[in-house]
């Protein structure tokens, strides 16, 4: 039994992030956006990375695709293992062949993410040609139309010759998705895919992502600040705060038995139907990441803060498939308290 478990555990992680740290530079300040993030993503699952703005979730996504580099930023240390290779050792050429083919990403704002002066058709076609140069025209056009079909476009011909500004927000995001899946990647990163869209379109897009995941056997990393969205769509949730993962658990676990005080505060702040207690907002601001304070980064806002939290930073405490970065989980400290 034990053997089976470890076997499946080993073969299931399509992406393994080990102790990743990254910083970026803004206004002559150094922002420590990622501080020792470790995370495993199982094949076929939908993993949500949730947290407030500025917690580092987008930087994490960008790091996986190697899009954090000088002069704007730098990956300081860590490994990103995918398909048996450490992506961070990639050179420019390696990255060019890898991105958009093995791992794809859709960004938050589909309008600014599409080139305004090129047609949709061209932007789709080039995605294919970048990884299969010299493809026959009819094969190419079949792939492109197919992608539009998969992203539920009714009139592909018209769409292909249109420019981004002629489409609606929902359509643009579907184009982004089409570009992302056209080369049949193994992993799709969706960075706040619905945040810029109308609420009515949000469900449409999320449903589409779900459908694509099923049809193409994708693994999906969903980055969001919306806990409800995470609850609806994700199998597991990694909660991030101040550049670290503070809790990682199944969705059901996060919502029923949150371990980290931050997660608990997040749960309290989500309005729940049929609940008598009103949501409780979390006071304070996330810390300024240009300077790293001593101790736990959540200590200033934590309702259950202890003395030790202010002087030393907690490591990750692993319990089965769950982990949380909090001294409350430390059996020794608990006893002392």
């Amino acid at each position, binding site marked *: 039994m034990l053997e089976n478990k470890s076997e499946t555990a080993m073969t299931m992680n399509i992406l393994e992030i080990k102790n990743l740290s990254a910083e970026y*530079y803004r*206004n*002559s300040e150094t922002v420590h956006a990622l501080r020792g993030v470790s995370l495993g993503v199982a094949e076929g699952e939908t993993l949500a990375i949730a947290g407030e703005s500025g917690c580092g979730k987008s930087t994490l996504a960008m790091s996986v695709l190697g899009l954090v580099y000088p*002069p704007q930023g730098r990956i300081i240390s860590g490994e990103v293992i995918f398909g048996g290779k450490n992506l961070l050792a990639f050179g420019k050429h390696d990255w060019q062949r890898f991105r958009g083919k093995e791992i794809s990403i859709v960004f938050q704002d589909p309008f600014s993410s599409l080139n305004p002066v090129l047609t949709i058709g061209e932007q789709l076609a080039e995605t294919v040609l970048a990884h299969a140069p010299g493809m026959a025209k009819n094969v190419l056009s079949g792939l492109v139309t197919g992608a539009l079909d998969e992203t539920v476009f009714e009139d592909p011909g018209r769409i292909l010759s249109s420019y981004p500004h002629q489409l609606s927000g929902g359509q643009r995001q579907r184009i982004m998705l089409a570009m992302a899946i056209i080369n049949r990647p193994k992993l799709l990163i969706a960075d706040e895919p619905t945040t810029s869209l109308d609420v009515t379109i949000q469900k449409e897009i999320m449903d589409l992502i779900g459908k694509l995941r099923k049809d193409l056997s994708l693994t999906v990393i969903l980055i969001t600040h919306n806990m409800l969205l995470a609850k609806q769509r994700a199998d597991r949730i990694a909660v991030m705060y101040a550049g670290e993962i503070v809790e990682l658990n199944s969705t059901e676990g996060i919502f029923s038995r949150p371990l980290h005080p931050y997660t608990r505060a997040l749960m309290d702040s989500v309005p729940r139907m049929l609940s008598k207690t009103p949501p409780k907002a979390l006071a304070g601001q996330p810390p300024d990441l240009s300077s790293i304070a001593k101790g736990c980064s959540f200590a200033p806002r934590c309702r259950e803060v202890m003395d030790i939290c202010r002087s030393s930073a907690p490591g990750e405490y692993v319990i089965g498939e769950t982990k949380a970065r909090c001294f409350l989980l430390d059996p020794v400290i608990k006893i002392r308290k």
Partner: protein
Amino acid sequence: MLNKIIKNRLSLTGLGLIVLLFCVAVLAPVIAPYRADAQHLPRRLANPGHEFLLGTDDLGRDTLSRMVYGVRISLSVGFVAVGISVLIGTVLGLISGFFGGWVDTVVMRAVDIMLCFPTFFLILLVIAFLEPSIYNVMIVIGLTSWPGLTRLVRAEVLSLRERDYILAAKLLGLGNLRIFFVHLLPNVISPIIVSATLGVGDAILTESGLSFLGLGVQPPTASWGQMLSSGKEYIYLAWWLTLFPGVAILLTVLSFNLLGEGLRDILDPRSNAGK
């Protein structure tokens, strides 16, 4: 603010040069070895040497001294001309952008029309009618350079006008004049400063061109352009009369351009300045 200027290499060089120029202008009588109009007739068209560091012209006047006094001319023309155009341009731009409507239409049409004429031609025309003198030059340059600034100010005002704090000010019943000075102007100042700085350089170039053609500063006053004009007669005999005043113009205009571009890098929030 001063910190930022020091950090930016462009503006620092420009500012340094300008400060130097100002010192020269103020200390001219002290620095110049001779008086600007002093003629040394036995030593006409003398080569640069010990006695006259940069040579003399056809009336035996020391080139170096004339160049030193020329700083005053160039700087005063530059600043007065720009002062005039900034005044006109800012007022018109503020009014046009803020009030909109037919005021805006009229002003912008006027701007468009003026911009169609080759500036130099306009200046030429006006000066030809009036008597060429340094004052006329200053005024005319000022009167022909405001259109560009007006457009700039208007664009800035237009983008600011819809900002919430302006609307808030209006709602609070603040008078238009107060809105102008307290809320709009401080934000409009940045592009004005950049434009004005670059404008000084431009004005100096224009003045030297006019003086070169004989339509600007009149002899015996020493303007660099004018020196180039009289030097042209002896261009193959006395190359120093052509070389040095031109270098002076180049360095002066360059310093204002450097400062202006440097300021633009600093003041424009959208630019890729700093790191």
